[in-house]
């Protein structure tokens, strides 16, 4: 008989949770948002021993407080959506820190399995975990796993199936007791709560009252008005005894409970050898040398991508060079055929011009992430990023922005607060993506000089920095400080890297490409009817009068909203040559490149901004960038005219 069940994966960040998720679901997964929240929701399915299993990969979290969206989403999912069982994945090499969350998950009183991951590394760092003893203490099945090799994955599922079939639900866990003073207060509050109607266990609610959890207080006030005031007497009492905030008292008790468990189950063999990861850190995170090494690594990345991308791009172009002539042969030059051709042009251009650069870029980036280097970059650059109001982790979306702005904006979810997410997303739209690189390199790099092109990248970073600083001051909301676990360097896992890359490329193919192609056909239609000429005329005071560019750039800039690299392609089509020196002076080229980089996010990026932050903010960002680029373009043109 076939049965549908659902499971949730929970755990700290960086414990191999997504690797296990990938093993379970393969490519049968989709990434979306939790309803109404900019928190990534990964869901996938698999079929195992007669079960259709729906797997939800909850965000990586350290706790179950209401302060972060990720933690709220996780606890609500486990308590309210009631999955058949929860797999809590813990990093066996950092058991103490990981068990802090485990205890909180246990308090939700759902059937649970502990996946003791990276069990193969415990020996290396000189610890030994007594699994039997741990199983005894927690009262839940423990399955040792080595996610990167896929070891133990089916055991996890087997344990889960046993759990839901043989054992009555939610009876296997044990209650980990806090100290007597805290337990007394928990008891009191449980009594007060009586028969409260809530999907959360009463004991959990009581603990959360002591932790001053605003969301739980709301639930109690709604269900049992009046009880809260009585319950809060307990928090006051605890604070009197301990002299700390009662939430800290509870956290401290939890830490204490965990360290007691650790004392019982973990045997540490003191080793005097410095671990390899620490040795690497002494080089890569060195106070001084860390920075030149970072610069060299970045230069290498861009060098490799540029070389490989050029080769790959040419390779693809040769393969598909026959498509357009073939199309024209069949469909001719009618208006409808032209619109259709713009769709094919769009698909081809993405294949030749964007994919060859975006693909290797993401492979290398996720290789560095999986290895552990990106966390080091966040560490090295945190101070710098703080100057623009975000912390070190924002480096990752910004870096992704050099590939394609769409996945870059989507990846801003890694930031903690709404303000930081929006600010980072805004800044990523200003980073020259692969399409804008086509303009910078194809125009400035080729005809003005490579140093001018590189100079534009530096100039771009300067502008991003200044705008970030201003936006940080203006935007409402709060920013947080960097709190990040430093993962050990580890051998990168090819499968993880490829799946991560695929997920981003998927954003590019499924979100960016259709929007771009469809709107491209619409604009092509307008163009064919000659409607864009009047737009160009209308824009000429700006394009000609202020930027000092030919009037035709008005049309280019309209097309550029679809895909930035169209600016260059259309220019070539309009003048019938790729020798742009015929119509543009070096100063004009630089001006056009700068305007192209900043003047508006492309249509696909605007849609993503809209989805993530609402249409008001999407429009605000777009309009700001239009006016900003207009101002900047004219100034640059004048300054360069005087200088050169």
């Amino acid at each position, binding site marked *: 008989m076939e049965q549908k069940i659902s499971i949730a994966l929970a755990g700290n960040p960086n414990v191999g949770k997504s690797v296990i998720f990938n093993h379970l679901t393969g490519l049968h997964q989709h990434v979306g948002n939790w309803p109404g929240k900019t928190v990534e929701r990964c869901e996938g399915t698999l079929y195992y021993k007669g079960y259709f299993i729906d797997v939800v990969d909850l965000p990586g979290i350290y706790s179950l407080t209401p302060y972060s969206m990720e933690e709220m989403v996780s606890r609500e999912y486990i308590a309210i959506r009631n999955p058949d069982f929860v797999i809590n994945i813990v990093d066996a090499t950092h058991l103490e820190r990981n068990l802090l969350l485990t205890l909180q998950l246990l308090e939700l009183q759902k059937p649970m399995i502990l996946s003791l991951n990276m069990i193969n590394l415990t020996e290396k760092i000189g610890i030994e975990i007594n699994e039997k003893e741990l199983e005894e203490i927690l009262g839940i099945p423990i399955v040792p796993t080595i996610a990167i090799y896929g070891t133990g994955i089916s055991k996890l599922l087997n344990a889960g199936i046993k759990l839901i079939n043989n054992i009555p639900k939610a009876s296997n866990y044990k209650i980990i007791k806090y100290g007597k003073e805290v337990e007394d207060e928990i008891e009191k509050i449980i009594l007060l709560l009586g028969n409260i109607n809530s999907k959360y266990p009463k004991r959990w609610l009581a603990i959360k009252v002591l932790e001053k959890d605003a969301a739980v207080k709301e639930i109690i006030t709604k269900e049992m008005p009046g009880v809260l005031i009585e319950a809060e007497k307990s928090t006051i009492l605890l604070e009197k005894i301990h002299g700390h905030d009662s939430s800290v008292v509870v956290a401290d008790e939890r830490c204490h409970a965990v360290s007691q468990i650790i004392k019982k189950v973990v045997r540490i063999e003191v080793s005097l050898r410095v671990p390899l990861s620490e040795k690497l850190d002494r080089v890569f995170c060195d106070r001084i040398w860390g920075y030149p090494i970072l610069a060299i690594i970045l230069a290498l990345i861009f060098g490799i991508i540029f070389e490989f991308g050029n080769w790959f791009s040419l390779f693809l172009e040769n393969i598909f060079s026959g498509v357009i002539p073939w199309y024209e042969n069949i469909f001719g030059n009618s208006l409808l055929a032209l619109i259709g051709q713009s769709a094919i042009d769009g698909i081809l251009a993405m294949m030749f011009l964007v994919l060859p650069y975006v693909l290797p870029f993401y492979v290398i980036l996720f290789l560095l992430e999986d290895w552990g280097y990106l966390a080091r970059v966040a560490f090295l650059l945190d101070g710098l990023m703080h100057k623009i109001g975000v912390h070190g982790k924002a480096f990752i979306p910004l870096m992704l922005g050099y590939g394609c702005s769409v996945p870059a904006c989507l990846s801003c979810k890694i930031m903690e607060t709404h303000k930081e997410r929006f600010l980072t997303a805004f800044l990523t739209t200003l980073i020259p993506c692969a399409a804008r690189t086509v303009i910078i390199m194809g125009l400035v790099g080729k005809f003005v000089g490579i140093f001018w092109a590189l100079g534009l990248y530096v100039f771009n970073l300067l502008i991003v920095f200044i705008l970030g600083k201003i936006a940080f001051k203006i935007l409402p909301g709060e920013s947080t400080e960097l709190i990040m*676990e430093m993962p050990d360097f580890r051998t990168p896992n090819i499968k993880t890297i490829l799946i991560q890359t695929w997920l981003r490329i998927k954003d590019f193919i499924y979100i960016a490409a259709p929007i771009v192609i469809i709107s491209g056909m619409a604009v092509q239609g307008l163009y064919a009817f000659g409607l864009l000429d009047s737009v160009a005329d209308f824009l000429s005071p700006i394009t000609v009068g202020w930027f000092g560019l030919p009037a035709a750039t008005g049309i280019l800039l309209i097309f550029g909203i679809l895909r930035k690299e169209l600016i260059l392609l259309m220019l070539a089509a309009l003048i019938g040559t790729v020798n742009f020196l015929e119509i543009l002076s070096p100063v004009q080229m630089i001006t056009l490149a700068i305007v192209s980089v900043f003047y508006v996010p492309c249509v696909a990026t605007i849609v993503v901004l809209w989805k993530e932050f609402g249409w008001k903010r999407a429009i605000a960002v777009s309009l700001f960038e239009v006016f900003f680029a207009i101002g900047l373009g004219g100034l640059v043109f004048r300054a360069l005219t005087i200088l050169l």
Partner: protein
Amino acid sequence: MILTNLKNGQEAVIDSVTGGTNATKRLADLGLTPKTKIKILRKALLGPLEIEVRGAKLVLGRGLASKIIIKIY
């Protein structure tokens, strides 16, 4: 004395955390509660500190780290 005053490799115990309950709570959730042993692994030239606490390595922004009052034992 505050955490940022420590030198690389120095150890101490947490005495208390100043600032709002939010910062206190976040740190407590990560196991940084009073009397916890803490060791500075390294400080970045630009800002944050890497510390070792409860057998794990954590990076804290400098602003947050300067809210942690410590005692050298």
